[in-house]
């Protein structure tokens, strides 16, 4: 499926270089000549948007580190110093803080798209699992990044999340002390989180390379879920996908800019503008919005270890989706029942997110339990059974047929088609 490069350099210097390291040819075959299904919709632009967000986070992060000090007595002040003293520091910090949220918005849409169109199914299992690894790394990176400003939410978020590991029998307390580098979250914790927060994005970038590589080996899925069968089913990456991705990115950046310039603190917590105090916990502590569904699951289980395992299980189950879904049909467009269950599941995820932001009491906990059970039932019961009982709709013979209709898709090339080419 990898695009055959037609790249032949004319320039003698480039020819010399290309015969020693075919770099330009690789770029050409991957991002210019690479055949993409002709029917990709805008949900497919989020891969490019995510790459853009990764670059955005790395660039703004590298700049923030130039002004930030990872020490318990200086961290909070150095962040305020960035906001007040550093030229354009407020903008760069808000880019980084809101960029994290935008990154997660994009990754959730990207994952929902994969689940809707069955992009995880053979032969794309490794591609899907690499994506799950990227998601895990993103969660770890975002968590450690949130600790760095050393506000109240930073400190107590770090305390709660690291304490999750204390739930494991026997080794739990030792793991936690080793995570902390002490007997509580303190300066050694801040220092190591800072180090890892700088390291992990580059690991993400490495896994992204593998993710894109795997994608280019098996080729992109598409809204029909039918593999491209002929040249007619694909268009070259450039200009078609580049322009479409570019337009998607611009629209996404407008959305990003709206947060950045109008409501830069909307997704944050006011408590994090209070310096960390190891002696007083804020009255209502909640994680960042992108962890809320998992936080709701943690609180839904009345047992410490059970809650932690449920939370981690909610992510681990994603790794097994390629095998839990027994249906032969990829796209939900041809799976009338799955389509409905998919949207119910999306609603459940959003519901869990909402419950995660509410206090852990009364009806909220009961609702949290119901939705948590449904979340797992979707993967462990509904997905395997649907494949057995669902009667899928007729699948088109090819992408072209799905796009243009049966008759036109099958029509042979007429004389008129070649005319513009010969004239041009």
């Amino acid at each position, binding site marked *: 499926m990898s695009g055959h490069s037609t790249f032949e350099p004319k320039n003698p210097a480039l020819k010399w270089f290309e015969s020693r390291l075919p770099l330009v040819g690789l770029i050409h075959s991957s991002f210019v000549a690479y055949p993409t299904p002709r029917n990709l919709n805008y949900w497919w632009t989020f891969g490019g948007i995510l790459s853009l967000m990764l670059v955005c986070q790395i660039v703004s992060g590298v700049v923030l580190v130039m002004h930030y000090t990872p020490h318990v007595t200086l961290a909070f002040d150095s962040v305020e110093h960035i906001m007040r*003293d550093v030229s354009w520091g407020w903008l760069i910090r808000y880019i980084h803080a809101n960029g994290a949220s935008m990154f997660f918005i994009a990754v959730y849409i990207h994952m929902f798209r994969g689940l809707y169109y069955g992009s995880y199914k053979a032969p794309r299992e490794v591609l899907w699992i690499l994506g799950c690894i990227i998601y895990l790394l993103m969660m770890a990176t975002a968590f450690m990044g949130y600790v760095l400003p050393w506000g109240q939410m930073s400190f107590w978020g770090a305390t709660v999340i690291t304490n999750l590991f204390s739930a494991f029998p026997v080794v739990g307390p030792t793991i936690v002390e080793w995570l902390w580098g002490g007997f509580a979250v303190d300066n050694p914790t801040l220092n190591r989180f800072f180090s890892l927060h700088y390291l992990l994005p580059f690991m993400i970038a490495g896994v992204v390379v593998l993710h894109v590589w795997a994608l280019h080996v098996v080729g992109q899925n598409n809204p029909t879920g039918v593999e491209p069968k002929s040249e007619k089913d694909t268009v070259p990456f450039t200009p078609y996908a580049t322009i479409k991705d570019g337009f998607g990115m611009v629209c996404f950046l407008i959305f990003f800019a709206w947060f950045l310039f109008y409501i830069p603190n909307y997704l944050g917590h006011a408590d994090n503008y209070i310096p960390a105090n190891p002696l007083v916990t804020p009255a209502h502590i909640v994680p960042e919005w992108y962890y809320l569904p998992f936080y709701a699951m943690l609180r839904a289980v009345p047992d410490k270890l059970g809650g932690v395992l449920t939370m981690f299980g909610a992510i681990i189950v994603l790794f097994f989706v390629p095998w839990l879904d027994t249906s032969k049909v990829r796209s939900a467009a041809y799976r009338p029942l799955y389509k409905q269950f998919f949207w119910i599941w999306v609603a459940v995820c959003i519901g869990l997110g909402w419950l995660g932001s509410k206090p852990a009491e009364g009806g909220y906990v009961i609702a949290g339990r119901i939705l948590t059970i449904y979340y797992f039932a979707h993967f462990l019961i509904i997905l395997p059974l649907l494949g057995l009982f669902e009667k899928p709709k007729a699948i088109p013979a090819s992408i072209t047929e799905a796009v243009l209709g049966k008759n036109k898709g099958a029509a042979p090339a007429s004389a008129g*088609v070649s005319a*513009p*080419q010969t004239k041009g």
Partner: protein
Amino acid sequence: MQLEALEGRVDRGLAFARLFRAGRSNFGPTQACRGSGQGMRGKETIVASTETAGTTRRDFLYLATGAMGGIGAAALVWPFVSQLQPDASVLALSSTEVDLSQVAEGQMITVKWRGKPVFVWNRTPDDIAKSKATEISVLLDPVARNANLPLDALATDENRAAEGEGHEKWLVVIGICTHLGCVPIGHMGEYDGWFCPCHGSEYDSAGRVRRGPAPENLAIPPYHFVSDTKISIG
């Protein structure tokens, strides 16, 4: 439909090639208007026009989009470059006051101004006499290098020492060797001033370079007397 899709492909290919040509052609607003008019008439007309006219509506759109994107990218890059400049907290430290009443005759103290060492020396009459006896012609650098005087002032002792009645004993210089930035050691070397441990440059009792490789006299920072016993540097 398929015919149209292929046409679109060829059409775009042509437009891409023309994107580079259009930059060199005498592409003006009148042509753009004409192009847009043709665009209104439908796809077939555009295809025809790409083969005859020099530029099209699409060329205009490509150029306008590219230009807008370029401006946007430049605007975004600026904050990332601008953040490198000294920030407000650094600029706030740009002046330092020094109390001279505690500096005994012959004593040399070092104070910090903008992160750099500044030497303040209460020179003895002997130091001053030696400095005054030195002819300009024997100096390696005949220019005063005094930020409080014109650029072409000569490196006489008067132009190097502090200005004003009874201030001539004070010498205030930035304690950074003009060679490669080391801090010279006081009361050392053949000329009774400073000796740089890095590459052996020597300075006299007016902070003037007397032996290389340093090319210039020790620089004198902008400063003024707040009172007879206090100066403000910067």
